[in-house]
Every structure is written in structure tokens, then in C-alpha cells.
């Protein structure tokens, strides 16, 4: 991973590769940054924009097919602040995009750790809490997790490949991933 600021030569990069990021300084102390959704999913753009709404005025718009335009204006109005914030936004966007990818690949791990941590901290419900639960005849037999379902019923093929035909793998079954770069 490069240690250089993602804002370095942004305009030059946009000219060479219009598909990535283009940054334009506007005259009124605002900056406009266009992102390609192929590189930065909308969720990541949302996440990055949200991080800044306490410090900046942020506006999103479409700038062509699969391109999102983020207009950023510092609440102080100073142009220098705006440029720095634009750089920070791009860094945050990179983090958000990468985090989406990591989370998707490690969903099981995240859920396992979070469940253990929160379950361990909260402990089992007490009698008062159980009595306060609204369980009637209709809801008593709801099975949202499919616990009562047999394996065959849960994973039976539906005339071809299913979305979740394979049983859950244990960590030991996971294929070795490539050696990751150190930092």
C-alpha cells in the first residue's frame, strides 16, 4: 500500500484514468470529488460522507453513469480547510471500501466474536426479563434461525445449485490464503 496521500496528483490521474477519482476545487471554498462506483461502492461513499457531516457541508449527486459527485464545503469556509478535508475524505473512503470487503469475507468471524463478547457481557436474561417477554401461542413456535429444521430440509437442492447448498465449513477447512503484505 502506498504511503503517499491519495490527493497527490488527483487531477493528473483523472486525466489519465477518468475512471478513478477526479477532484475539482470550486471557487467558493468548496471542493468537488467524483468517484467511480466500480472502485468505491455507494455504501462506502455514504459511510465516508457521513463521517464528515459534523465538520463539513456534504452534498452528493450523480456525475454520469456509476459516478458519484461529492461536494464538500468546510463549515469554516476557508479554502485550505476544504482541500485538507477533501484529502481526508478520500482516505476515509478508501478505508470504508476496504472495510466493506474485509467484513464480507470475515462475516462469520465478526459475528462469532461479537456474539461471544456481547453474550458474555450481558449474561442470561433474568426472571423479570423473561416474564416481560411477549411470547404468545403465535410467536412461541416461530423459528427464524431454522433451528428445528433438519439438515436435509435446510440444504436440499432446488432443481440445481442453491445459494447455500454447502454446509458451514470449520476454520480448519478454509483454504490457505496468500501471504499478506506486512505494513
Amino acid at each position, binding site marked *: 500500500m502506498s504511503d503517499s496521500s491519495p490527493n497527490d496528483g488527483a487531477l493528473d490521474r483523472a486525466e489519465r484514468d477518468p475512471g478513478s477519482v477526479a477532484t475539482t476545487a470550486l471557487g467558493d471554498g468548496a471542493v468537488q470529488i467524483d468517484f467511480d462506483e466500480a472502485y468505491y461502492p455507494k455504501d462506502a461513499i455514504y459511510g465516508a460522507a*457521513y463521517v464528515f457531516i459534523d465538520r463539513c457541508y456534504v452534498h452528493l449527486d450523480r456525475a454520469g453513469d456509476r459516478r458519484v459527485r461529492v461536494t464538500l464545503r468546510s463549515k469554516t469556509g476557508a479554502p485550505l480547510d476544504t482541500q485538507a478535508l477533501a484529502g481526508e475524505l478520500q482516505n476515509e473512503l478508501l478505508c470504508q471500501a476496504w472495510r466493506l470487503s474485509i*467484513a464480507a469475507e470475515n462475516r462469520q468471524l465478526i459475528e462469532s466474536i461479537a456474539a461471544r463478547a456481547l453474550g458474555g457481557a450481558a449474561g442470561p436474561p433474568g426472571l423479570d426479563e423473561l416474564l416481560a417477554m411477549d411470547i404468545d401461542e403465535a410467536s412461541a413456535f416461530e423459528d427464524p434461525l431454522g433451528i428445528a429444521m433438519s439438515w436435509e430440509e435446510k440444504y436440499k437442492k432446488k432443481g440445481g445449485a442453491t445459494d447455500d447448498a454447502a454446509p458451514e465449513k470449520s476454520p480448519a477447512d478454509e483454504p490457505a490464503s496468500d501471504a499478506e503484505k506486512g505494513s
Partner: protein
Amino acid sequence: MIQIRFHEELYDALSIDEAVKTYEPYAKLTAHREAGGTIVHVEALEGGADEPLIAAELGNFALGRAVERSRAQTPTAKEGT
């Protein structure tokens, strides 16, 4: 008067509506739909806060609500982001 364009793929109608309702006491606001999104017109009230400020704050509010709504609808995996 200032016009703010909210693209329909980026701002849901409910979030825009909420933003308009929230800032109604501070400016004269009108909204209309057109192809691809909603346009909100911001006109300052006599002796009130200035239009650019109201417009900017309204925009932030709408974006915030749109993001929150989008996250509330996405699957659990995305809560890790």
C-alpha cells in the same frame, strides 16, 4: 433563492421530506419532483438565517437521514463497516 437537487438514487424521498419539515420554521421551503430527483427551493425569511446556511444544513440533515436509513435496511454483514 437557492435550489438544492437531491438525486433519487442517493437521497430517499422520506429523508428529504424529513429535512424539509425540520427546517420549515427557519425558511420558506418548497419541494417538487422532477426526472431523477427532488428539487428543494430555499428562500430566507425576513430577519431570519441566511439562505446558504439553511440550504447547507438541510442538505446535511437529508444526507444523514438517507445514510442512516440505508444502513438500517442493509444486511447484518454491513454493520461491520
